[in-house]
C-alpha cells in the first residue's frame, strides 16, 4: 500500500536542483573566484528560479508570504528567511564583494542545509526522512555549484574545491544509500558514482592542463547530481504505507 507522493512534482524538484546548484555556485565563487560578479548573478538567478518554481506549485499563490510565519519549527519558513538574506547579501556582493560575498556564501550554505532539513522533516517519506539526506543535499549543492563555476574559470583552486566536493558527495551518497535503499535511485546513483564522480575526477585531473576537460568534468558532475535530486524528489518519495502489528482475533466476543 505504499503510495508515491504526487504533491511535489518537478516544480518542487527544481527548487532542490536549481536552488542547490545556485547556492553551491555562490560558495564556489566566494572560495575560488571572487573577482568576477557573473557567478554571483547566475547564482541568484538560479535560486530565484527554483523558488519561483515552488511558488507555481503552491495552491494559494497570493498567500505566499504566509510562508514566513513559522520559523519556530518549519524548515520551509527558515529556508525562506535564509533565501531573503541570500538575495540581500548576494545583491550587495555584486556591488561590493567584500565583505558581502563571504556573507552570501555562508548564507548559501545555510540555504542548502535548510533544503536538506526540509526533506529530513518529511516523516511520512522514508527516502527523505533518513538523517543522511541532509549531507546528501548539501554535498550535491556544493559539487554542482563548483561544477557551474567551472564555466567561468578553471583555476587550480576551484579544481581543488571541485574535486573535494565530488568526493564529499560520493561519500554522502554512499552513506545515504546504505541508510535508505531505493530502487528508483539505483540508476541515477550509479551514474553519480561512475560518471559524476570517478569520470569527473579523472577529467578534472586532466583539467589542470586542458581547461575543456575540466568543463566536461563539471558537466558530468552537474548532470548526474541534478538527475539524482530530480528522482529523489519525484520518483523515490514513497509514503511508508500502513502496518498492522496485530491481526484481529475474531470470535472472542
Amino acid at each position, binding site marked *: 500500500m505504499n503510495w508515491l507522493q504526487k*504533491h511535489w512534482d518537478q516544480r518542487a524538484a527544481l527548487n532542490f536542483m536549481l536552488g542547490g546548484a545556485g547556492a553551491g555556485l555562490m560558495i564556489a565563487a566566494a572560495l575560488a573566484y571572487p573577482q568576477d560578479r557573473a557567478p554571483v548573478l547566475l547564482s541568484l538567478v538560479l535560486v530565484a528560479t527554483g523558488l519561483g518554481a515552488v511558488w507555481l506549485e503552491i495552491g494559494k499563490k497570493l498567500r*505566499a508570504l504566509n510562508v514566513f510565519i513559522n520559523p519556530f519549527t518549519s524548515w*520551509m519558513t527558515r529556508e525562506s528567511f535564509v533565501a531573503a538574506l541570500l538575495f540581500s547579501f548576494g545583491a550587495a556582493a555584486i556591488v561590493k564583494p567584500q565583505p558581502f560575498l563571504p556573507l552570501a556564501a555562508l548564507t548559501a550554505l545555510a540555504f542548502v542545509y535548510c533544503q536538506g532539513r*526540509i526533506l529530513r522533516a518529511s516523516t511520512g517519506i522514508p527516502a527523505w526522512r533518513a538523517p543522511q539526506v541532509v549531507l546528501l543535499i548539501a554535498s550535491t549543492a556544493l559539487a554542482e555549484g563548483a561544477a557551474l563555476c567551472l564555466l567561468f574559470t578553471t583555476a587550480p583552486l576551484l579544481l581543488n574545491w571541485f574535486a573535494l566536493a565530488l568526493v564529499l558527495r560520493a561519500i554522502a551518497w554512499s552513506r545515504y544509500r546504505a541508510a535508505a535503499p531505493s530502487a528508483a535511485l539505483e540508476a541515477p546513483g550509479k551514474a553519480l558514482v561512475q560518471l559524476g564522480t570517478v569520470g569527473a575526477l579523472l577529467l578534472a585531473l586532466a583539467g589542470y592542463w586542458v581547461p575543456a576537460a575540466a568543463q566536461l568534468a563539471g558537466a558530468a558532475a552537474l548532470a548526474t547530481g541534478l538527475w539524482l535530486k530530480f528522482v529523489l524528489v519525484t520518483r523515490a518519495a514513497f509514503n511508508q504505507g500502513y*502496518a498492522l502489528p496485530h491481526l484481529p482475533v475474531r470470535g472472542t466476543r
Partner: protein
Amino acid sequence: MTRWAMVADLRRCVGCQTCTAACKQTNDTPPGVQWRRVLDMEVGEYPEVKRAFVPVGCMHCDDPPCMHVCPSTATKKRADGIVTIDYDLCIGCAYCALACPYQARYKSSEDARRPDVATKCTFCVERIDAGLAQGLKPGVDPEATPACVNSCIAQALHFGDVEDPQGNISQLLAGNQHFRMHEELGTGPRFYYLWDKAP
C-alpha cells in the same frame, strides 16, 4: 484535561464503508478525497491468508509532524488534542501531506469549500464544539459525536475522552489488547485499534 480519541475495533469492522460515506456527506469532500477510509488488507499467502478491514484517517497525533513542518501555522493542535487546519492561513504547499505518515491529508482544486488547501479529518470538530455547548457528551450523544462513529453499523468505531477513566474509550482500552499505528515514529497517534480481548 480532555483528550479526544477514537477507537476502531478491528474484530467488528466489516469494511462496509458506511463511515466513509457518512464522512463525505457530512464534510462535503470532493471525489477522491476520503477523510475517513477503510482499508481492505490481506496478510499472508494462500492458503494462510487473513483479511482485515482497517479504518484510517487523521490520527490527531500528540506530536503531529504535519504541524511542525507547516510554514504558515495553519495547522494547529487544540488543548483537547484535535489537530485543526486554518483554511484561511494555509498556502497549499502540501508539505504537511508529505510529513504525515498516515496518508491522511489531501489537497484538491475540486474541493468547493476548501479549494487548493490542505484538508483532513477534523474529528467533526464543529459537532463536538456545538454539542459541548449544549451540554452533550461527545462519544455518547450522537449530536456531539463524529459522523463516522454515528454511522458505523457494527459499532466498530468509538469516540470519547481518553483521559476520562470511566469513559467509553478508557474502558475499551482496559478491556482489550490494542495498538496504535506506526508507534515507532513517536507521533503519539490518538487512534487506537482493538485486536483481541485483554489477556
